[in-house]
């Protein structure tokens, strides 16, 4: 059996999702719906102060409210979990605030009741007194501020790529990452042209429609957690550590998620439901409101100062990137964003001399963590805007300057890793062709002006990470795939089933995919960063091949000749329809961590994602309103396992990024989010979608990916924001360097430019 596209039967087909019928009939079980007998609902009481010492918390009135089962603070939590701090990078986040609060919205106390209205009403009766401390909200200010968000930092050591972290004292710098290649300063001193620009991005939130929710049924020796989580294995590990229990005493069950986008990772509500379930001796459920999601996890606002030395022909000779990531009050996975995305800050360009300084900062904002793109969109916003600004300053065509500098196969990236399997050139050329870049473009002469813009970007897959899978063949020949990858709408169940079906020569529709249950589905690092197709796909393929080999060996030993059905083997071996065959697959890619001093590594990542965007826009020059007339999304995702799913992932990712580009922003007033609801935080709706959207996954093959496939969920987010900004400059000659690009922002920029000239 060959692995190549034109010989495949299941992989490469646009099958409908396996759970399609459930989704259109409303039968899908989400954690949102879970009800357990005797269950209590938890309602969280939150800090109204951005930074302060807790003087007192008065829960007496809440406790006295009829129907309230219990009210807890960190004092109660500490009676069962003496050191109740968690976090994937730093153990900095308490289950309920201890001694201090660090952001408005931080959980301080919790009410438990059987009825949600009782819990809600009682929570409103809790009062707390704080000694307010000065707060810091801006990432640049946080770098050097006297205001220190955390007095003491502790590393966690859970993930090897963050193992070397150790917290500093008297600083807000959670992590600093440095990369140095060549001698940038010397080039800056001697170059013909030096360009320096600063770009900003804003705080936004994933807003999955199924809000974050967890349920715990905890007993002294056995804990079961039902949770909407993208990382069941991590939840088990972390809860086991918190409780001082073995991993086999913690069971984490995850059904389909109603969206994730990175919000539902690591520990969100799990520790709190477990602790309160242990205290109350009842199952406990906490389901956040849409508003509360904004207080839980968000996307890093950033400031990126980028400086390039360019020769008169537009060749980039040196680049220095200073990136400040606003991590909010708790690190969450911010340090990984800073480092992993940090090393691609110079862009998909061939530059001999590169220096990158990337800082993860603590501030008194709601915490930032993983959000689709994982820091890449913020970086691309800067470097692809910068590319166009250089092009225009030197009167070079924006496509030409990219062609001149693009990072090609076989060349070293800024870390020193030699590029392979990243079709950056192909993606760029496809975008250019689709947008008819070489043809003249009518920009209009009236009050509506038109423009077009392009952007090209890449992302390194996170490493090192482990995926394992089990393929079980039953005595009747039917098959169950058991893995801890979580289907949050990206169709991982379906695509992994396609891989198994291909290997075992079965029909995808007949494969059962178990829902993650850490008692049954083996370890997976997590469903994030577009890693599952490649990492879990490889583990799944290995598991299917293992099962197939075992079956074939069994058949051989029984002298069964082909053709035979799987069930024939079982009947002959076990004497009846009985028995099981288990195939196991485990995959961890090779990886070399970056050098601590200069950030270099020859093996930075197992695969690259590539995304390019082209846009045509119209601007109402009287008001600044822009319309995206045409949106082109092109990616390299290797050989798509399910082309139709891939297509929806492209427009889905791009439209989400449109929201971050044009309309979404968390507004803060003294640290309080003032627009934590859909009434005032506007995500794209039907009338915000470009009338013409074109998607393409270019023809490519990831040589070591399962059937040539690799990840795609984030790739179409990368270039959207700068492509639009570049189109705006093309249309009306002004440069926007912050997000979101609102009509007022654009109008003011146009007016300012007019006044200057």
């Amino acid at each position, binding site marked *: 059996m060959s692995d190549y596209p034109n010989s495949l039967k299941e992989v490469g087909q*646009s099958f*409908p*999702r396996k*759970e*399609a*019928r*459930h*989704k*259109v*009939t*409303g*039968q*899908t*079980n*989400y954690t*949102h*719906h879970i*009800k357990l007998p005797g269950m209590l609902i938890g309602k969280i009481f939150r800090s109204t102060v951005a930074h302060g010492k807790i003087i007192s918390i008065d829960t007496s009135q809440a406790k006295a409210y009829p129907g309230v089962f219990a009210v807890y603070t960190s004092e109660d939590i500490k009676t069962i979990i003496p050191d109740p701090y968690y976090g994937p990078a730093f153990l900095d986040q308490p289950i309920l605030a201890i001694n201090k609060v660090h952001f408005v919205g931080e959980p301080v106390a919790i009410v438990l009741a059987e009825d*949600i*209205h009782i819990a809600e009403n009682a929570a409103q009766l809790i009062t707390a007194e704080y000694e307010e401390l000065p707060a810091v909200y801006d990432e640049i200010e946080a770098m050097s501020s006297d205001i220190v968000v955390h007095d003491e930092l502790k590393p966690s050591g859970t993930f090897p790529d963050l193992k070397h972290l150790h917290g500093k004292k008297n600083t807000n710098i959670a992590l600093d990452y440095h990369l140095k290649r060549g001698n940038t300063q010397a080039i800056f001193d001697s170059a013909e042209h030096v360009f320096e620009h600063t770009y900003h991005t804003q705080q936004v939130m*994933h*807003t*999955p*429609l*199924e*809000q974050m929710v967890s349920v715990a049924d905890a007993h002294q020796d056995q804990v079961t957690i039902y949770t909407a989580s993208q990382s069941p294995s991590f939840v088990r590990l972390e809860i086991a550590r918190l409780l001082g229990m073995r991993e086999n005493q913690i069971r984490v069950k995850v059904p*389909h*998620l*109603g*969206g*994730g*986008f990175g919000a539902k990772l690591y520990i969100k509500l799990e520790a709190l439901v477990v602790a309160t379930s242990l205290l109350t001796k009842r199952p406990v459920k906490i389901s956040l*409101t*849409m*508003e509360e999601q904004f207080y839980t996890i968000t996307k890093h606002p950033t400031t990126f100062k980028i400086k390039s030395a360019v020769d008169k022909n537009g060749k980039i000779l040196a680049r220095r990137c200073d990136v400040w990531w606003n991590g909010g009050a708790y690190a969450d996975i911010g340090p990984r964003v800073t480092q992993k995305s940090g090393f691609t800050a110079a862009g998909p360009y061939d530059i001999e001399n590169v220096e990158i300084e990337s800082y993860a900062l603590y501030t008194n904002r709601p915490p930032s963590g993983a959000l689709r793109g994982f820091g890449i969109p913020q970086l691309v916003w800067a470097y692809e805007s910068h590319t166009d600004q250089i092009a225009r300053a030197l009167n070079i065509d924006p496509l030409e300057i990219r062609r001149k500098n693009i990072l090609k196969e076989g060349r070293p990236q800024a870390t020193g890793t030699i590029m392979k399997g990243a079709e950056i050139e192909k993606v760029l050329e496809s975008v250019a062709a689709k947008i008819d870049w070489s043809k003249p473009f009518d920009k209009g002469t009236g009050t509506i002006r038109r423009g077009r813009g392009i952007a090209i970007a890449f992302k390194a897959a996170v490493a090192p990470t482990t995926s394992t899978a089990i393929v079980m063949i039953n005595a009747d020949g039917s098959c169950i795939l058991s893995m801890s990858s979580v289907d*949050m*709408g*990206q*169709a991982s169940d379906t695509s992994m089933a396609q891989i198994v079906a291909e290997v075992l020569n079965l029909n995808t529709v007949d494969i059962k995919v178990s829902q993650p249950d850490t008692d049954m589905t083996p370890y997976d690092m997590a469903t994030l960063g577009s890693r599952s197709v490649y990492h879990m796909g490889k583990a799944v393929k290995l598991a299917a091949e293992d099962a197939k080999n075992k079956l074939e060996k069994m058949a051989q030993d029984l002298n069964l000749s082909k053709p035979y059905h799987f069930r024939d083997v079982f009947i002959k071996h076990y004497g009846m329809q009985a028995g099981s065959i288990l195939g196991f697959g485990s995959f961890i890619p090779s990886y070399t961590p970056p050098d601590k001093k200069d950030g270099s590594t020859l093996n930075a990542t197992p695969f690259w994602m590539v995304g390019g965007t082209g846009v045509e826009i119209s601007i109402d020059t009287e008001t600044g309103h822009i319309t995206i007339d045409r949106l082109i999304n092109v990616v390299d995702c290797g050989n798509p396992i399910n082309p*139709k*799913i891939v297509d*929806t992932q492209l*427009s*889905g*990712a*791009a*439209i*989400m990024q449109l929201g971050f580009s044009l309309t979404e922003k968390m507004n803060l007033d003294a640290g309080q989010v003032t627009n934590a*609801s*859909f*009434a005032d935080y506007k*995500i*794209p*709706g*039907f*009338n915000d*979608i470009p009338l013409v*959207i074109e998607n393409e996954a270019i023809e490519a093959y990831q040589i070591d990916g399962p059937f040539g496939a690799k990840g795609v969920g984030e790739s179409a987010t990368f270039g959207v924001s700068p492509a639009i900004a570049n189109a705006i400059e093309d249309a009306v000659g002004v440069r926007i360097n912050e997000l979101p690009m609102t009509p007022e922002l654009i109008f003011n920029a146009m007016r300012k430019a007019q006044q200057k000239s």
Partner: protein
Amino acid sequence: MKIVNQLIPIQFKLNGKTIETEVQAQQNIIELLNKLNLKGARESCGQGLCGACTVIVNNKAVSGCLEFAKSLDKTEVRTIEGLEINGALDPIQESFIETGAFQCGFCTPGFILMTEQLLNQNSNPTDDEIRHYLSGNLCRCAAYPEILKAVHLAAQKRASK
């Protein structure tokens, strides 16, 4: 005056079946449906803006998260669970599957019910008419392009029946 949490008896037809139950004054329709083990309508944004809570009451789509459960008394209610007949999917449901018009699926029942309402009023809507009618439903996975196709396909299927 102390308000006692009285239970209010109500009676209504739910997907054709008569239901007699009691609700608290402050409970909304979604809470009641959850109590009756119906999972299709979901409270998400809580402000009637995302449409995940869409429920049909006396043939009109309403936001279940903004309606008190008591308002269902003496009404006929239709939820996504009422579309399937004897195991056969409604043409709208089939269309959503064929065009892949969902990803995580959380908003999907809402979109399907609104589509039914639209097609009942306008059997062959234009792109613009579809976008306008469905502008009160949000999909964070952004399956909008596919949903547009699904509505057109559903219109065709219904017309050919």
